[in-house]
């Protein structure tokens, strides 16, 4: 499609401009009057340049509108194809989701599918089967190890929420064994900040 669009009339425009310019004799600036004359000439040339540019803009606008119409002709079937392939992709995704559900049921995973399914599993290139089996194996392994960490049902609940033994243990410990305050904090029953304030106050009294 190279160079199918040609501009015509540009030569005429050029000639017209050249004709107008040929009548121009550039003024020599030597005094106030000639200075004013030169300024006037500059204004006339600005006007001429503006008119040419205005024509360019008009042409560009007209060209864009016409070319947009042509592109729209192509966009119509593109949109239609997108709709058709999109519908097919949706069907594939629905089918894939059914396959995922089936394998999930088969693997008998004791965690809701929504908690473990990754969005990318619905992408055509994703090896969801391996990933789902890996998740199932990890959960099975974790549940085998879990009783050796804690037999507290709350820990198990936390695991099912977080699906990682180490993270669940940290959270469980945080809840059940809050960090101990050191001796000074216990003695004064004050935080570091409060303790510092007391020290500063004592110092301000001139006491050691």
């Amino acid at each position: 499609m190279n160079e199918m669009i040609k501009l015509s009339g540009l030569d005429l425009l050029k000639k017209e401009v050249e004709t107008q310019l040929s009548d121009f004799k550039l003024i020599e600036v030597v005094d106030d009057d000639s200075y004013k004359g030169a300024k006037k000439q500059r204004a006339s040339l600005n006007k001429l340049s503006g008119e040419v540019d205005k024509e360019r803009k008009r042409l560009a606008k007209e060209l864009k509108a016409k070319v947009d119409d042509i592109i729209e002709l192509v966009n119509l079937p593109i949109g239609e194809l997108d709709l058709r392939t999109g519908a097919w992709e949706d069907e594939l995704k629905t089918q894939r989701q059914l396959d995922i559900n089936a394998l999930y049921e088969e693997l008998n995973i004791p965690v809701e599918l929504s908690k473990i399914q990754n969005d990318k599993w619905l992408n055509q290139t994703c090896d969801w089967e391996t990933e789902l089996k890996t998740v199932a194996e990890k959960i099975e392994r974790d549940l085998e190890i879990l009783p050796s960490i804690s037999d507290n049902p709350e820990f198990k609940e936390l695991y099912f929420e977080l699906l990682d033994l180490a993270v669940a243990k940290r959270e469980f410990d945080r809840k059940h064994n809050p960090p101990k305050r050191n001796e000074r904090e216990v003695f004064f029953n004050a935080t570091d900040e409060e303790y510092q304030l007391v020290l500063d106050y004592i110092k301000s009294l001139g006491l050691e």
Partner: protein
Amino acid sequence: MIEFNESTHTYTLNGKVLPSVSTILGATIFKDKYKDVDPYILQRAAQFGTGVHKAIEIDDYFGLDDLQYTVFKRYKKLCKKHDIKPIAHEQIVYTQDYAGTLDMIALIDNVNCLADVKTTYNLDREYLSWQLSLYEMAYMKLYNKPQFDKLYCIWLPRRKGAELVEIERKLPQEIDWLLKKYKEIIENE
């Protein structure tokens, strides 16, 4: 006394062959990790990684090809960004049950860390978590030291970027389970 045979990649402790960390993981949880990868590609990737590891160890880019050099430069930049100060490289650690070679002990942002360098396209955090936890456990037992403050992966993918990724530590109970599982597999072979 631990001995390492580089050609057979075998660790021997007082005459007894110890399984490596990668052998244990490959026999238990990560059996199929590289099953679909072309062996030639695996070998190329290993060569690439070995070159980068070596450069990091000696802190010099001598002998690197162009891509390895680019990756090494990204590593240096990452070191600056996170104030990574290596303390030890390629150190063999072992227990009575297994052995391995950790990549790096380093001060990272002023805390004591254990780090592993990976040049893979994808990062397998689960594998790294086991790998680093096993190294850490062996290191702690061997030198009677406390846990590292943090475990990290220095991720240097070939194509772009460099990232410092914090890795979650496995619990001692998980490691015990893994070692027991490995023993069962070996006994049943």
